[in-house]
Structure formats: structure tokens, C-alpha cells
């Protein structure tokens, strides 16, 4: 299936963002806002955490 870690993360973030946008909002404008904010923040925060973890190898 999808081998790219980033692509998997992006697809996962999009699915979760769309799900919560339709679960919690009723207007199209509000839903788009939630998709952008939630999906975007999931990706950005993951990248920040990955960057912070970079100097700390497992061994």
C-alpha cells in the first residue's frame, strides 16, 4: 500500500480531520475551517516532534 511515512501521516490526518469536521460542525465553512486547522496542526506538530527527536537516537 502506501510506503511513505509522510504520505501515511498526511492521509491519516486528512481522514481524522474530515471525520471530526463532519461530526462536530454543520456548516460548510466551519467544516473547512476544522479540516484545515486540525489536519494542518496534526502534520505540523508531528514534524516539529520529529525534528525535536532527531538529535536523540534510539541507541
Amino acid at each position, binding site marked *: *500500500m*502506501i*510506503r511513505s511515512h509522510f504520505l*501515511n501521516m498526511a*492521509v*491519516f490526518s486528512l*481522514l*481524522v480531520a*474530515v*471525520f471530526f469536521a*463532519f*461530526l462536530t460542525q*454543520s456548516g460548510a465553512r466551519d467544516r473547512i475551517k476544522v479540516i484545515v486547522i486540525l489536519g494542518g496542526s496534526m502534520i505540523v506538530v508531528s514534524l516539529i516532534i520529529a525534528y525535536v527527536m532527531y538529535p536523540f537516537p534510539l541507541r
Partner: protein
Amino acid sequence: MPDVPVVDPAPAAENSGRFVVPCLLAWLLPGLGHFYLGKRKRAVVFFCVVATAFVLGIGSDGAASLIDPRQPLSYLATFDNLAMGPLDLVSRQLTFHEMAYRLPGDESSPRQQELTRLLRDRVKSPTYEYGNTFLLTAGLMNILLILDAFDIATGRKDRAPA
């Protein structure tokens, strides 16, 4: 004597039982409970999202969870898988080639060895972790959909079609 608001028991009695059908439908197929309640557009989106997560999970070599008495979290993971309704049967069949829900617990049992071997085959896949995450997320989303259908059916959430 101060005025005490009187709660009419009639609406509560009227609502009891109204949630059973939508919740059952939501469990049978993601989004079906919302479709039944008149939320057609939402239902289609929910079905697409949960089905996509499920298909990606299966396609990425995710595995259905088995109850292992030595691992308490395996109970939660198996419950989460069960929330997918009949789709869980598909993932179990693809993972174990049978409807297995629990490890026998006896290391020497041939069934335990076979189930463990099938599980290890999945774990060796480089996309196993992604697949498992998608599968578990699909189950969690369907649990939320069942609870949302309950809220709409009992009038706790808007009943207007959307």
C-alpha cells in the same frame, strides 16, 4: 414553598428504545445509523472516511487483534475491532483465515502456534504499524459514530437533516 421545575417524564419514556435501531445500524455499517436518522450527506462522508481507513488498514497488512490474557490492552484493541461490526469478520478472516478472537493461552497448543505464526507474518511487514493504526482508528471512529447516532436519536443533538 419555592417553585420546583417539574420534569415531564413523557419525553424520556418516548425516547427510550428509539436509539436502538440507529445504533445497531451504525454498528452494522459505518454511517448507516446517520442515514437512517436523515443525515444523508454526513452518512456518506462517514462511510467513505471509515471505509477508507479500514481498507488502508487491511491493505497495509494491519492485523485484527486477539485477546491475550497476559496483555490487558489486547482486550481494548479487540473491543475496538469489534466496533467495526461485520467488517471485523473480514479483517479476521484475512488475518487468521478463521474467526479467532482469543489466543488459547497454552504455548504448546497447535492452534496457539498457528495464530502466533500468522500474527508474526503480519508483524514482519514494513507497513504493519501503519495498517494497525488505520484499523484501530477506523474502529474508534465507528464507536464515535454509534454514540453520535445515540445522541441524535435521543434528541441530545440536532435532529434537523444535514
